[in-house]
């Protein structure tokens, strides 16, 4: 049962990702990106991380895709001669990508993993969100604060960059 759902989600993820980079209209690309994010959220649920799935839906689908749609529609990009690829570097790019896929695929299929298992078994992960909250505010409190500072800087930076110059 789980396998069937995994393959459904995986095929939908790959199909929508290909649609993102191949569709000519940027609005359609943004919608495909939203589909891709939703499928990845479903995969997070299959990996027993419901909190991350909720965060994925809120941040990516709720904020990032809407921001992209805003940018596309505010700048009115759709009317231009849009959707042409970078013709002159296409062969090199395809060679690089295909070589990367072969090398990494070989590594994944022939590699083995023998690391020590942690103590968060499936039974312990029933309280997934609670464990994650406790970890965020005890063991990982320093990165948490750094990331909050980074968000503040990004907020100010975005406002300054998008502000109109006076005069």
């Amino acid at each position, binding site marked *: 049962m789980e396998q069937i759902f995994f393959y459904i989600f995986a095929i939908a993820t*790959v199909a929508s990702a290909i649609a*993102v980079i191949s569709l000519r209209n940027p609005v359609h690309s943004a919608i495909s990106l939203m589909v891709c994010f939703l499928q990845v959220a479903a995969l997070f649920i299959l990996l027993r991380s419901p909190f991350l799935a909720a965060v994925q839906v809120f941040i990516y689908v709720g904020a990032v895709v809407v921001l992209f749609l805003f940018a596309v529609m505010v700048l009115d990009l759709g009317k231009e001669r849009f959707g042409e690829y970078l013709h002159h570097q296409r062969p090199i790019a395809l060679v690089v990508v295909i070589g990367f896929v072969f090398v990494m695929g070989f590594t994944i299929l022939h590699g083995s993993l023998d690391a020590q298992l942690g103590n968060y078994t499936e039974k312990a992960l029933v309280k997934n969100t609670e464990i994650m909250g406790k970890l965020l505010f005890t063991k990982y409190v320093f990165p948490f604060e750094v990331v909050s500072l980074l968000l503040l800087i990004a907020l100010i930076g975005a406002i300054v*960059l998008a502000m109109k110059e006076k005069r």
Partner: protein
Amino acid sequence: MIPLSHYLLLSLVLFSIGVAGVLLRRSIIIVLMSLELIFNSINLSLVAFAHFLQSMTGRVFVVFTITVAAAEVAVGLAILVAVYRRRKTVYVEELSEMKH
């Protein structure tokens, strides 16, 4: 039970599609979307490793990655708006002043 390699292969395919989008498309906004695809593939492999190693570190790390990705999109789209206002173009090969 789905083996770990399936998740890693899916993540690899997503990553490669993202890299192909960055290298092939002309408009910056599609390049930014491809960057988001790359972020997503990395998140997926982090959570898969955390699940199969029964660890919590990867899951916590994904929260930070998502935050950084959101900040990156906000700043990137602000730069895009500023560039478009000044240059009236969003094509990467027309924005090459800093190349040399």
